[in-house]
């Protein structure tokens, strides 16, 4: 995504025949007429990319719905082996990070350049906290042999094989979500540099906006994952 919103490139010298009618913003890329067109294109591109992400996770959600319907009881039981408290804390952490992300963009809009950097760092820290808590949860699953495969211990479950499918879905869904978080943190870390150098202000902060869209999307995925995996039907039935 970095290249989608890269702040400038001047590789192509302007063609001799092209007449430049007015002053150009230093961040304006050669293929665009003006900053407005460039900003609109970048954000539209990001939205289209997010649509692909929706379809990507959509496949997983479909698989989840199919199996949850087929193996309802097994999924409820397996869901009880997740820690909703940790999940809830992580939800709060992510919502907080969305707030700091939004504040970073707001800071750009009101030209508070140093604040952008601090808000980006805060977002990165919150993202890292999320991943840390996720790591704790994963470790717990490893120690309790709840990772699908040869070492899976199904003795706690009345339908161990279906529970294994639940944990397969759990790992692939949360794993891909975490992978998206890692990419997001990478993008934010990259953006701190131009932000530090004061490149972003009210006239130009498209990269921040696009990364923000991405970050909010990743949050949103978690907002769906959390109830589906941790809450739905959990702790209602005791075996």
């Amino acid at each position, binding site marked *: 995504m970095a*290249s*989608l919103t*890269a702040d400038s*490139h001047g*590789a*192509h010298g302007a*063609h*001799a*025949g*092209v*007449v430049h009618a007015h002053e150009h913003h230093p961040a304006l*890329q*050669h*293929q*665009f007429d003006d900053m407005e*067109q460039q900003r*609109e*294109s970048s954000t*539209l*591109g990001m939205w*289209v*990319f997010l*649509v*692909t*992400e*929706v*379809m*990507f*996770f*959509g*496949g*997983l959600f*479909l*698989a989840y719905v*199919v*199996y949850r319907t*087929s*193996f309802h009881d097994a999924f409820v039981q397996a869901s009880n082996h997740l820690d909703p408290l940790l999940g809830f804390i992580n939800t709060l952490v992510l919502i907080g990070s969305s707030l700091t992300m939004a504040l970073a963009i707001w800071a750009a809009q009101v030209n508070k350049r140093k604040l952008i950097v601090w808000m980006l760092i805060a977002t990165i820290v919150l993202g890292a906290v999320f991943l840390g808590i996720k790591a704790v949860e994963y470790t717990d699953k490893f120690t309790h042999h709840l990772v*699908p*495969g*040869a070492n899976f211990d199904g003795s706690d479950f009345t*339908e161990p*094989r*279906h529970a*294994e*499918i639940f944990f*397969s*879905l759990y*790992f*692939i869904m949360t794993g891909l979500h975490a992978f998206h978080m890692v990419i997001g943190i990478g993008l934010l870390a990259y953006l701190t540099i131009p932000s530090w150098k004061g490149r972003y202000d009210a006239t130009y902060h498209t990269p921040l906006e696009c990364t923000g869209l991405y970050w909010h999307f990743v949050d949103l995925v978690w907002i769906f994952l959390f109830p589906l995996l941790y809450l739905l039907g959990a702790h209602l039935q005791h075996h």
Partner: protein
Amino acid sequence: MDATVSPTVHPEAAVARPNYLNAEYGLKSWLLTRDHKRIAILYLISVTVFFALGALFALLVRLELLTPQGDMVQPDTYNRLFTMHGIIMVFFFLIPAIPAVLGNFLVPIMIGAKDLAFPKINLASWYIYTLGGIFTLWAIVNGGVDTGWTFYTPFSTNYSNTHVVMTAVGVFINGFSSIFTGLNFIVTIHRMRAPGMTWFRLPLFIWSHYATSLVMVLGTPVIAITILLVAAERLLHLGIFDPRLGGDPVLFQHLFWFYSHPAVYIMILPAMGVQSELVAAFARKRIFGYRIVAFASIAIAVLGFLVWGHHMFVTGQSIYAATVFSVLSMLVAIPSAVKVFNLTATLYEGSISWDTPMLYALGFIGLFTIGGLTGTMIATLGIDIHLHDTYFIVAHFHYVMVGGTIMAYLGGLHYWWPKISGRLYPGFLSRLSALLVFVGFNLTFFPQFILGYLGMPRRYWSYPEEFQVFNVLSTAGATVLGVGYILPLCYFTWSMRYGKKSVDNPWGAIGLEWDTPSPPPTENFYTIPVVTRGPYDYSPEEVHARRTEEVRVG
């Protein structure tokens, strides 16, 4: 080319005007370029390499099938051959061919833009494609994969002991190049049209690429996740589709075909776009029912997402679901039929030239008609039960993908070659190639309809003797087809260096891409054009002027 299309070369044209080819030199200037035209050339080279590889596998498959006993290669070698043929042709040739080569080159020029909206992402898409290709080639070199291009579970996840993961990773990575291309086109077409270029002044090529991009963006992620799940099941034992855990292998098929059926439209929609440009340019008239043809592209893209279940009529899905998928599949045939009729009607009272691109275009209409009609036949439930997974299916989709997509791709390449390279190619040889491809194609694939009706299943290494006659015919046709494909490869390569220099507009065609020199300058136009009319308004005076005059600087 012959006299009707090769006017005198103006002396001033010999003075090299700056264009995208001579703007910079050296390997680095190509590998790091962000010019959509150069990226299109990179794609042209890579898809040609993959096409040659896929064709080689096809040739070996056809040779094996000359005799019923299966005496040339071992069965597991044969299985790898048809699998690699399918994977390479579908993912590395057919899907990128028209959008990433012709689309990449022409979409910005046709709408009057200096480049695509995201040139770096465009270049990245080529690198991603190449990386995906390298993974796949690595798998081939190490022994290949034998799951069929469809990767059906549980064979692919639990039984095959070939390089499934490596190939899956290759296909997965390659998917992103499709997504990036589609994303780039959507944004470019929305945001970067020249002044006056309203939606209904867009060439149909653009409409069809817009529809294609929608399918790329909405469909590709689904196969990405599906392929990823297959790889995860093999590597990490996450058993989403594993029947031993209670998982459902048919769920895989649903997810797979949710992309892979629309993927067919990724292949055919741009072909229809090319087709519209060719017919308009070589009949020199407006496309009959322009708006209807434009909307038909969108209708095909949308309906294409609702028909995937027709690949599963015999898996034991509910007969009511099958009924719904059957009727929806019938509906998708309607906009396709409308396109064929409109293209044919465009010929009426046209001024029809018999230049090579037009020969390919007319061949396309015939072959696509057969491909489409047989498609509705197998969408009919009662027939599909018999024909499912037989050579009838093989023949049907080759009529659409080879008879449709490759004919249009070659036609388009012949049409825009003077634009791309600034040079002409031999007229006689190129007409011969069009004829050979048409004849060879029919000889190869028509017998397969009969084989399928007789009941010969797909993916058979050996077969009952009574099927031999048709298999021999098919193999004979394949050799003719092969010659038909080698010819353009030779004369295009030759023409790049030795071909006669072309004028800017050898066809007297109308369209923004012909309002700029051939080959175009780096940012496509000397001045960004202002559009004041529809795409195909031909008049004799204008054709004359366009055919004989060079585009002037400024």
